[in-house]
């Protein structure tokens, strides 16, 4: 019996290692593979009256997905994702540099601090941003108190608020690969640069930065790609003027009651994400 199971699961490894993998595999299969598979199947179905699903299959949903009226959403999504990536890089690189080279004893504490927003519910985080950014919120009150403003500015429901929320959430995605890459730069190589006459800035520019480029690329990709699917930030901080691809999809499910179309859009987004990551892996190996 054990032998048969072993063969089924791939033969050469002992049964014990398959059993060790079982909880994780079952988790992935039931909570990821099966739902994703169901979604893809649903994407070919038709939408019936009041949103009931009619199991007749065709490519009509995918055809609709390429309707030019969705182009503004696509552009907006790419623009926000690109802007988030750039801001995260500009903020994240110095942060990663500090963590690697200057933080010393505080390194682990700072890393934990970086991850904390990640662990707490992002809903809670975004609602707190509303309190900070609102017209009667902390930011406006402080700016008026210190005389920078005479009247409160509406920070909420603007691209600024959306960008803030996105950067807040995705910063760890950028910093961690950067940190890992910078950490791998051998200190002796940097010392060699000093030794040969390179000042601090020259050594950074000519040695540290080029050697950290893999981390920069990884950080950008790991930020850009998930950011494409984001919808919660806009939902709470942005308002419908700036709805992104993620919102388009969630609307199909929650509002338009057109689950098959929503599934088709999701499948396309998934294909894009997986494709992008696959391309990145190919590039990395080269």
């Amino acid at each position, binding site marked *: 019996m054990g032998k048969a199971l072993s063969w089924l699961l791939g033969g050469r490894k002992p049964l014990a290692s398959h059993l060790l993998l079982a909880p994780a595999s079952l988790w992935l299969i039931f909570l990821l593979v099966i739902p994703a598979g169901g979604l893809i199947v649903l994407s070919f179905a038709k939408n019936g009256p009041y949103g009931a699903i009619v199991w007749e299959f065709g490519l009509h949903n995918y055809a609709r997905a390429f309707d030019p009226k969705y182009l503004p959403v696509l552009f907006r999504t790419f623009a926000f994702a690109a802007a988030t990536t750039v801001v995260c890089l500009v903020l994240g690189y110095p942060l990663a540099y500090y963590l690697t080279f200057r933080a010393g004893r505080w390194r682990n504490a700072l890393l934990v601090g970086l991850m904390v927003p990640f662990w707490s519910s992002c809903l809670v985080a975004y609602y707190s941003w509303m309190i900070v950014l609102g017209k009667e919120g902390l930011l406006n009150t402080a700016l008026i108190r210190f005389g920078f403003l005479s009247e409160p500015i509406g920070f909420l429901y603007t691209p600024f608020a959306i960008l803030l929320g996105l950067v807040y959430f995705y910063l760890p995605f950028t910093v961690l690969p950067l940190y890992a890459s910078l950490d791998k730069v*051998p200190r*002796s*190589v940097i*010392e*060699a*640069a*000093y*030794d*040969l*006459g*390179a*000042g*601090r800035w*020259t*050594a950074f520019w*000519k*040695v540290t930065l*080029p*050697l950290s480029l893999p981390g920069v690329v990884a950080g950008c990709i790991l930020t850009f790609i998930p950011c494409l699917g984001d919808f919660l930030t806009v939902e709470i901080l942005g308002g419908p003027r700036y709805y992104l691809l993620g919102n388009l999809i969630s609307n199909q499910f929650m509002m338009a009651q057109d689950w098959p179309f929503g599934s088709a859009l999701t499948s396309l987004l998934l294909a894009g994400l997986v494709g992008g990551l696959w391309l990145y892996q190919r590039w990395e190996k080269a």
Partner: protein
Amino acid sequence: MDPPESAASPAPADYLCLSGVSKSYGPLTVVRDVSLAVARGEILTILGPSGCGKTTTLRIIAGFESPDGGRVRLSGADVTDTPAYDRDVHTVFQHYALFPHLSVADNIAFGMRMDKVPEDEIKKRVPEALAMVKLSGFESRRIQSMSGGQMQRVALARAIAGRPAVLLLDEPLGALDLKLRKEMQLELKGLQRRLGIAFIYVTHDQEEAMTMSDRIAVFNHGRIEQVGTPGEIYEMPKTSFVADFIGGANIFSAKVLRGEPGRAHLLLEDEHELNVPLDANESLPGIGARVKVAIRPERVKVFYKDELPFGLIRFDAILKDTVFLGDACQIYLQMFKKNPERLTIAWAGGDRYAVHDDMDVPVIAAVDPEDVYILERDNG
């Protein structure tokens, strides 16, 4: 016992001078009051076991560490507070530290570009440097595709291409195999002679130090125990540490019985009375004091028959063990009845003395009184 050689005031021939340099990390003092002078064009080796402060001293010379006390002078100018990138000192790192994203040529050209040497000059000097390390034609090779020995040479070429005043080498041959290491030692020596640059070489391998150096500074626990030529260090060790570290020695305990000008009467290990000559500048601690005494293994001669040449000190001994090493034999003798565990090591050439296979054979050990060195006070 003489104090270690110091150079508190730099002599005109000195090129690099450390005076009273010390460095601590927290409660741990790594370098203690080190004073050293390196002449232009010499190879000085800093020799010592792991953790003795030699790498830290080198890093202080390079400018990567700032000493807590003392000054560093290069060609008369005080460079203690000058950062590494402004010092005319280049380092060959232990693990090469080559720039992985640059080609061999760019690695070598790096320092020159920092010094704003014109490009056509660089184009000339890079192949020159490669030729000096016997790597001609490697200009466009990538670092990842090279062997350890090749990378070592590139690191060397990179450091000398800029014609620094002093070259620091931090155990550069440590990662190479024995044969390659011996080849490189001779190559390095030849290279230095041709370039005329002062080399400061750090190693824990005493054989390497003896092969390469003009002078050796022996470090122990952050202090210099002795500075001298290889011959001086070997023949006239000042402390038991130096005696044992270089060449290995038999270190014994002895009591001073009485002294006369130029000679000392000692009781070796509470058993044997010796009468040994003193060196010109050697002074004897008072009567009754205990001292450490060293005898080099190769100076202990083993005889199977009582046919001693005249003038040697004679010991009755029992042969306990022999180790055949190919070009020599290590012989373990039991010379002291009061301390039978205290074995004496003697070296013998391949065929000079017949080696018996029997153990516990009574033999006669003999030592020339000249070969008995009195070291420091025995406080243990």
